[in-house]
């Protein structure tokens, strides 16, 4: 059965290729960075927790000291006029495979059903590469060379989402969520329904901005304010309070660099000069939408 270990090996091999191609171009800092990440994917389970911790510190040291060089310019083979709209078809192979795999393969016994979407994504990459090599007949290493060029354009930001997920785990061990929930529960004025709704929705957005993730903020804020005050105190409908409260958190996700995979990674992918340009573009939607969520909870949850 194909599960995460096989996918990790495949991912590790791709990062090995990024590292090797970086060496070939004398970009040694980049080579060390992608090489360490390759080692993590290929053998992370054998390093032990402390060993993995040292690997993280080494990766961060490389990124923090500016060892990664700026991206270089790739070779443009064609300008698209020769292949025309047929170029859009291979671009669809990955999403279509991810979709088909998610629906068709869960009970096949071939694939770990818990990881079906990620593994279908990997299958889609392989199918797309086969189709592209058969059709375009590029030089043998072209796909990996282009992949290396793009990952260098993203740079250290490629690792930020995984690092933030790790920070969330450390916060959980240290009990940070309970501390914030305790403080939030103490500062709310009692007696006013609208003030309580305001505190819950804004608290969700703010704590999501700090954690970079509404999933981390939801249990803390709902246990501190949502359940005791809004549901048990004022008799609010729990489904409405929670559903819209979560969406108030999503408004926070739009306004924070901590939500790296949504806000920082795309800025790097699109090669924007301002790292926070995507966040700035989103604030104008997020703030009025947060106000809408506050009004919606107030109107809908309390008959």
């Amino acid at each position, binding site marked *: 059965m194909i599960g*995460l270990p096989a996918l990790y090996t495949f991912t590790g091999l791709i*990062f090995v290729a990024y590292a090797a191609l970086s060496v070939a171009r004398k970009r040694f800092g980049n080579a060390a960075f992608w090489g360490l*990440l390759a080692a993590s994917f290929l053998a992370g389970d054998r390093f032990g*927790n*402390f060993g*993995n*911790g*040292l*690997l993280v*510190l080494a990766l*961060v040291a490389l990124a923090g000291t500016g060892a990664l060089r700026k991206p270089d310019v790739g*070779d*443009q083979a*064609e300008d*698209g006029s020769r292949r025309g709209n047929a*170029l*859009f078809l*291979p*671009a669809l*192979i*990955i*999403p*279509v495979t991810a979709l088909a795999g998610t629906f068709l393969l869960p009970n096949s016994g071939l694939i770990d059903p818990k990881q079906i*979407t*990620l593994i279908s994504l990997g299958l889609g990459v392989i199918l797309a590469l086969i189709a592209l090599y058969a059709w375009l007949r590029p030089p043998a290493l*072209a*796909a990996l060379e282009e992949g290396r060029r*793009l990952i260098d354009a993203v740079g250290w930001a490629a690792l930020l*989402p995984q690092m933030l997920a*790790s*920070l*969330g785990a*450390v916060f959980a*061990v240290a009990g*940070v969520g309970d*501390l914030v929930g305790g403080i939030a529960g103490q500062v709310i004025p009692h007696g006013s329904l609208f003030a309580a709704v305001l505190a819950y929705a804004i608290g969700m957005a703010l704590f999501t901005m700090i954690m970079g993730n509404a999933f981390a903020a*939801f249990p803390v804020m*709902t246990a501190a304010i949502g359940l005791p005050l809004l549901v048990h105190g004022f008799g609010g409908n729990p*489904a409405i309070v*929670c*559903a819209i409260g979560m*969406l108030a958190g*999503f408004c926070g996700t*739009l306004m924070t*660099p*901590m939500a790296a995979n949504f806000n*920082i990674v*795309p*800025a790097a992918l*699109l090669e*924007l000069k*301002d790292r926070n*340009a*995507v966040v700035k*573009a*989103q604030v104008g*939607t997020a703030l009025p*939408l947060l106000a809408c*969520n506050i009004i*919606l909870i107030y109107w809908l949850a309390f008959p």
Partner: protein
Amino acid sequence: MNYLPLIGIAIVVVGFLFRLNPLAVVTAAALATGLAAGKGLAEVIAILGKAFNDSRYVSIVWIALPVIGLLERYGLQQQARRVITRFRRATTGRLLLGYMLFRQLSAALGLTSIAGHPQTVRPLVAPMAEAAAERDTELDEVTRERVKAMSAATDNIGLFFGEDIFIAIGSILLIVGFLDQNGIHVAPLHLSVWAIPTAICAFLIHGARLLWLDRTLKK
């Protein structure tokens, strides 16, 4: 109560304000939080290492880059631009509005991974939005950045305020599980229908901003 572990939050906020390298800021915050909670340095490093190793699935998405890069080598971005310049009525704002509707509706059906920043925004949506803006006016560097950033923002907003309408998405299951632990039983469908009013508000607010973007581009 020991409030010292909150130092990690302070480090993150200050680090981002002063635009230090985020990887270094996050690592410093993790180490400081662990130490403040009374753990030894070696123990904190081990906790961080375990969390990092357990979170590797987050970085799998980068295996798609060879496919995207190869398509770009053969002119995918230029072709996307060429297609959009043929449709005179497809302005930047209308194009992004249409993309947001597609993203919200497909996410509401649970199809969150069929689009995204590496898969669709970089190779298709952003070049198309840029080309549509370029057709009418000369783009300066600031405006070009704004159009690209708005393309990424539109993908995020469409995804966030569509996916919660689907009953089997992570956030809905998290709410069901959390309420269950607290003795309140709700069906996923009863949660997901209450995501619809916010989804409509998001479409109206962001849609209005996109059409406004068109007006500012014309000047």
